[in-house]
């Protein structure tokens, strides 16, 4: 090829590229992103995230599944479309006793399954007992562990009974034997809400001791506890049965939960898909195949019509639904997709009407998409923070941990991250009306240096000396993800700028990362993405550090902290409880097992003709309120106002 020809070719290729880039830029200056013509009728095409692992509401743990489950199954309570507060579902009204350890739900009498069968309290009892059976191996069963003996059932536990007297050994006896204070019994004052029954009296008997049913495991546990051996000696073991747990159908339309301890956030838990009611006969008849189209019986506003994995889940309006008159969407097609660019392409071409949260690529936002009127940016129920290893290395020193948290400019991080907002505290502010987080960490370089000098990293004159900083004992360990890498690099630069130290980065594949973090097998800093709240209450965050195991990931466990949390949860007055929880959060931040960084915000797209769909803090939508508006005059002109709790279709 001659030189001239080659040049011409290069010019042509570059020209094409510029043209293509121009198309993108032009599109993004528009008010709306791409095509805005609604599909005919009342059909919604929604991208919900990954392919659902299961359509069984008691089996699935993720958000993609939750959104589909909301359409097909209804629980006692439904999510408020804007605030996610509990609103009536199958339950018309509800009440709790004084210390929130017992909840009674009164069910509406006209609720029906999609095959016409009545939904009664017994169906809920079945649903919850089934979800907790250990053979089902549900990974979200822990959502129901607040119910008395639910955890015991789920772990395959057994009560300990004296074969001669028939008396059960009590948990308090074991606690006394181990030298711990006996657990407080929840108050029994629930009879005035619903009639007292034999089961009710039984479940309120002092808590029984539970040991593993499995002989080997029991032997292990008995060995570990010094005096347990004496208590179980010569006794028989009665496996915990589904009938033993604290959920009771007082009558067909009254459902009572007895909890193992005061749980003021229990209403928020019952909105989870784990508590959404399923049809016993169908489940027992078809086994694992009960969720297939053709077999499935639904309880929600919509019912399953088609499921082709990795292609679509289609639900259509359920004519037997008790509130069918309000339901406007005839059909919802859920598209399982994970490629962000593909999602945005489909949205722009008008092939989908709305997407799930965090579906917009950061580069597109920077290119201007965040100014588009169909972009949903509102506070989210989540918190982004890094964990510190409090069991080994320099991060065992509280002063050192605080210094790390104090030498970060969160405002700069917010500017860098585009979507998330700065957050120096742990619980995200702005989503829980009435809860006031403590001020938390702000940039204070001098303070940080002082703390580091106190911790021993100082020169002869007592000032902080970067060369003494234990860089070799630290690593910013993050799991593979583009955004984690960016934040990790940003933070590395922050500490370099403010403290003059360069902490090395270490990238770990995601599945391995969580195991390492749980084992505290990291040097100093675990830079994961953070935590999304399970329900709308500060406890969903603060509770993470009430146990040394689980998702704690820091090794920080402080009995004083746990006591403070328990005291707050016994408080019936919500305003007072929130004040107490705020103090708990302050105590946590003062000990700094974590470096709070950001609070996430929603980041998704919705066409202006989709109404009743709001950027709520959990991106969980009650589909019964959603509809397609064909009258262009009534379309959204901006992101819906989230400060006003009224919603369309109310």
């Amino acid at each position, binding site marked *: *090829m001659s030189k001239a*020809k080659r040049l011409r*070719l290069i010019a042509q290729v570059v020209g094409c590229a510029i043209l*293509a880039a121009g*198309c*993108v830029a032009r*599109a993004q200056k528009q008010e709306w992103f*791409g*095509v805005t013509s609604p599909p005919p009728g009342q059909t919604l095409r929604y991208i919900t995230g*990954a*392919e659902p*692992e*299961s359509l069984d509401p008691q*089996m699935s*743990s993720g958000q993609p599944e939750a959104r589909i489950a909301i359409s097909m199954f209804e629980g006692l309570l439904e999510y408020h479309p804007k605030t996610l507060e509990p609103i009536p579902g199958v339950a018309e009204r509800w009440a709790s006793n004084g210390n929130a350890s017992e909840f009674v739900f009164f069910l509406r009498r006209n609720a029906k399954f999609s095959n016409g069968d009545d939904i009664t309290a017994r169906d809920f009892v079945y649903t919850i007992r089934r979800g907790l059976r*250990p*053979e*089902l*191996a*549900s*990974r979200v*069963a*822990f959502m129901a562990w607040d119910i008395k003996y639910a*955890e015991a059932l*789920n*772990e*395959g536990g057994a009560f300990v009974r004296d074969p001669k007297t028939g008396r059960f050994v009590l948990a308090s006896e074991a606690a006394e034997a181990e030298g711990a204070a006996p657990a407080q019994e929840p108050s029994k004052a629930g009879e005035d809400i619903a009639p007292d029954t034999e089961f009710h009296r039984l479940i309120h008997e002092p808590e029984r001791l539970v040991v593993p049913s499995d002989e080997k495991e029991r032997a292990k546990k008995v060995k570990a506890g010094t005096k347990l051996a004496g208590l179980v000696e010569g006794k028989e073991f009665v496996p915990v049965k589904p009938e033993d747990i604290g959920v009771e159908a007082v009558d067909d339309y009254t459902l009572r939960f007895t909890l193992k301890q005061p749980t003021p956030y229990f209403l928020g838990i019952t909105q989870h898909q784990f508590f959404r009611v399923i049809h016993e006969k169908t489940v027992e008849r078809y086994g*694992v*195949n009960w*969720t*297939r189209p053709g077999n499935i019986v639904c309880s929600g506003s919509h019912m399953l019509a088609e499921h*082709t*994995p*990795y*292609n679509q889940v289609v639900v259509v309006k359920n004519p037997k639904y008790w509130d069918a008159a309000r339901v406007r969407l005839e059909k919802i097609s859920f*598209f399982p*997709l994970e*490629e962000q*660019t*593909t999602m945005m*392409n*489909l949205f*722009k*071409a008008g*092939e989908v009407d709305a997407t799930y949260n965090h579906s917009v690529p950061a580069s597109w936002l920077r290119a201007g998409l965040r100014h588009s009127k169909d972009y949903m940016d509102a506070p989210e129920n989540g918190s982004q923070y890094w964990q510190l290893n409090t069991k080994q290395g320099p991060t065992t020193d509280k002063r050192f941990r605080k210094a790390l948290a104090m030498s970060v400019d969160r405002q700069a991080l917010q500017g860098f991250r585009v979507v998330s907002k700065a957050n120096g505290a742990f619980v995200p502010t702005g989503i829980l009306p009435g809860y006031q987080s403590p001020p938390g960490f702000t940039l204070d370089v001098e303070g940080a240096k002082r703390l580091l000098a106190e911790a021993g990293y100082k020169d002869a004159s007592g000032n902080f000396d970067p060369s003494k900083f234990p860089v070799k004992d630290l690593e910013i360990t993050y799991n593979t993800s583009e955004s984690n890498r960016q934040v990790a690099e940003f933070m590395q630069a922050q500490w370099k700028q403010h403290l003059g130290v360069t902490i090395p980065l270490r990238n770990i*594949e*995601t*599945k*391995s990362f*969580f*195991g390492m973090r*749980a084992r505290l097998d990291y040097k100093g800093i675990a830079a*994961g*993405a953070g935590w999304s709240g399970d329900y709308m209450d500060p406890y969903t965050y603060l509770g993470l550090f009430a146990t040394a*195991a*689980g*998702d704690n*990931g820091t090794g920080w466990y402080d009995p004083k902290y746990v006591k403070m949390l328990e005291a707050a949860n016994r408080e019936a007055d919500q305003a007072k409880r929130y004040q107490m929880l705020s103090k708990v959060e302050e105590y946590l931040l003062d000990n700094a097992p974590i470096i709070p960084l950001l609070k996430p915000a929603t980041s998704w797209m919705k066409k202006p003709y989709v109404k009743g769909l709001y950027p709520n803090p959990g991106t969980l939508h009650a589909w019964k309120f959603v509809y397609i508006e064909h009258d262009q005059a009534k379309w959204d002109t901006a992101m819906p106002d989230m400060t006003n709790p009224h919603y369309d279709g109310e």
Partner: protein
Amino acid sequence: MSRFNFILRRLLVTVPMVLVVVALTWALIRLAPGSFYEGERKLPPTIEKNIRARYGLDQPWYVQYGKVMGNILRLDFGNSLRYENETVNEILRRTVPVSAALGTCAYLLALVVGITLGTVAALRQNSKIDYGAMTLTMLGISFPNFVLGPILVLVFALSLYWLPPARWGGFPSRSLILPVLTLSFIYMAYIARLTRAGMLEVLRSDYIRTARAKGLTEAQVVWRHAMRGGLLPVVSFTGPALALLISGTVVVERIFAMPGLGNYFINANLNRDEPLILGIVAFTSMTVLIFNLLVDVAYAYIDPRIRY
């Protein structure tokens, strides 16, 4: 040795080869950290125990290994761990036709366009047509499909709004056009170059000169004599090409959100979904081995010099 014996022997070798591949894959899955039920959230030990018991993960490794191998020999790969109401066989039955439709269309398109382009280029060697065709093929080879796909989407779906940008619309449908184009481009390029090279060599050989000397028309020379020899490199390319096609669809299926095998393969690996990974690996390796065998057999028909 008869042709039948040859095929039989090759088929018999296929079985242990697939077993070795599966065994290696199994070992690699076991070596990789993490397991299918682990997520961002640490599961309470009770729940982890329940899950492990349900899926037989609490048994010793040789018991699990024996079970896996038994399943493979019976061609029943068991249930997926992640999508528990589906068997791996059902997943394969549903997804293979999608990937096969994509792959076959792409390869047929590549054959037609590639051979035409290559032949024309060879017949008009060093002409503008030749240079144009070879520039195009150079682009085709050096342009990865994850770049080409989005460019095609940008032009045809997002600027001109002619074609859907993604998702499966059944077979045949307009939704196939962009992924098939994306997938076939690189093969088109290879085939065109192979055809050109093969044809150039053949066109200079003695038997073509003889054919021309006998007074055959140019069309007869090309179609009846030159093509047969000139396309041999394309035939031998088909074996590895079909293997490449399988890995190629993984990317294209992802970009265009096609419910094919590739999407499952990626997610099965990320999810550590052992039965599904093993099922797909076994299926893929069998396909590759069988295609290679078919290519070898086809060789004998096309090239009279090859005998078994």
